[in-house]
């Protein structure tokens, strides 16, 4: 539990001359469940996208296992540090197109059993594989999108409000899944949430306001 997996050193991000993130520094240890909260527009998604290397910081540095994230091959890095979007959209035609994509990019055969297993873990079932992405609900899309990130082992999951489109029951299913991935499979999780109950679950909690860290709490 003690090795730092991420070290953020004075991260700043500007877009259109607007300071969106300022002086963000913190360390994440291997296996932590980091919860991040803050008002809308405080820069939470931007921070996760920078950690996911989908955006580049304006200044500052992020180390992943002691090496600058910019020194990793982006596609390899993103397979290890997997970002799940706040409002994901599915691609292709069917749910299966989405779940087979991670196999395609690794030039591997689609593992239908594993896909069905994960569908069931998030309260869906095998019948969803052939469903059109236009015929499933927002909450179902959100769960399919989350599964895309879980088909292969990752070191880190970056979750951006993954329960916001879900009802109480399904949120609970996803929360349980996150805890299980974190505790049993030792995946480090950075979880952005507006839900105070979810926020409290973090072993490491970060409150952001206007692009800055306002409060940080370690267990």
């Amino acid at each position, binding site marked *: 539990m003690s090795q730092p997996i991420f070290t953020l050193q004075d991260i700043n991000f500007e877009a259109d001359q607007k300071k969106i993130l300022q002086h963000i520094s913190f360390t994440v240890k291997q296996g932590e469940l980091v919860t991040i909260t803050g008002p809308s527009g405080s820069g939470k998604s931007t921070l996760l996208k920078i950690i996911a*290397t*989908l955006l580049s910081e304006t200044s500052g540095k992020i180390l992943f296992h002691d090496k600058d994230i910019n020194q990793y091959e982006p*596609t390899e890095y993103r*397979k290890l540090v*997997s970002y799940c979007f706040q409002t*994901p959209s599915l691609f*292709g035609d069917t749910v299966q197109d989405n779940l087979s*994509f991670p196999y395609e*990019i690794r030039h591997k055969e689609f593992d239908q059993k594993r896909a069905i297993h994960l569908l069931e873990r998030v309260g869906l079932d095998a019948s969803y594989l052939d469903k059109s992405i236009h015929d499933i609900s927002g909450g179902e899309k959100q769960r399919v999108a989350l599964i895309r990130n879980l088909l292969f082992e990752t070191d880190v999951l970056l979750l951006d409000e993954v329960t916001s489109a879900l009802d109480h029951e399904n949120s609970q299913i996803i929360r349980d899944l996150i805890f299980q991935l974190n505790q049993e499979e030792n995946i480090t999780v950075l979880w952005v949430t507006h839900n105070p109950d979810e926020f409290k679950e973090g072993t490491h909690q970060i409150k952001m306001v206007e692009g800055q860290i306002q409060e940080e709490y370690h267990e």
Partner: protein
Amino acid sequence: MNSLNISNTSLIFASVLIVIALLIDYKEKLGLGKDIFIAAIRTVVQLFVIGYVLSYIFKLDNILVTLFMVLFIIVNAAINAAKRTGGIDKAFSISLIAIGVGTAVSLIVLFVSGALEWTPSQIVPITGMIASNAMTAVGVGYRSMNASFKDQRQQVLEKLALGADIKQATAPIIRHSIKSAMAPSIDRAKTVGLVSLPGMMSGLMFAGIEPTTAIRYQIVVMFMLIATTGFSTMIASYLAYKSYFNDRKQLLD
């Protein structure tokens, strides 16, 4: 050749057609008057100039001059196609390679098959035909690609986030861009002869060539256009998609 001759007097009388267009513009208040006028003047000037230039080149029958003309056509086509990229990096070079290679390949196939002879009066018009179609097709491909990158921005980002390479994240966009660029020439090939008699064939028949001979040329032209549009847009798409990303494999704004 039969008596194929339009006198300058006939041309002047034909200008009545432009006057009709100007009258329509005036009556319907289209505000196109200036455009129609300029278009008409440009048509006359450009075609007269190119007519005399071609006439000179055909008589000269010099390999270098012919090649220069071919190059001139291709460069112009590339400049025009590049305008439709919506400002991507190296738009001109990409278009030049795409249209140049696409045109060259078609020309070579036509030579090898014996469908075309190495005389300026065949090479120059055929190059013009191929390059202008390649230009339009490449332009359509660029526009489709631009639109797709806008519409499917989120999907591309999600694929990148899953660890896809930029090519894997863009594959459907590239496919769609090539498809939409090729579609018009495929459609045209399907309806040719049913809806319109194409320019090449009409021209040959005008000049008194037997329709059965004229169609052979037209068949060659149709095949050539399908191949060139496909090949040129494939090259253009595969070169252009990279400009939507930076070297960190991030999708640009």
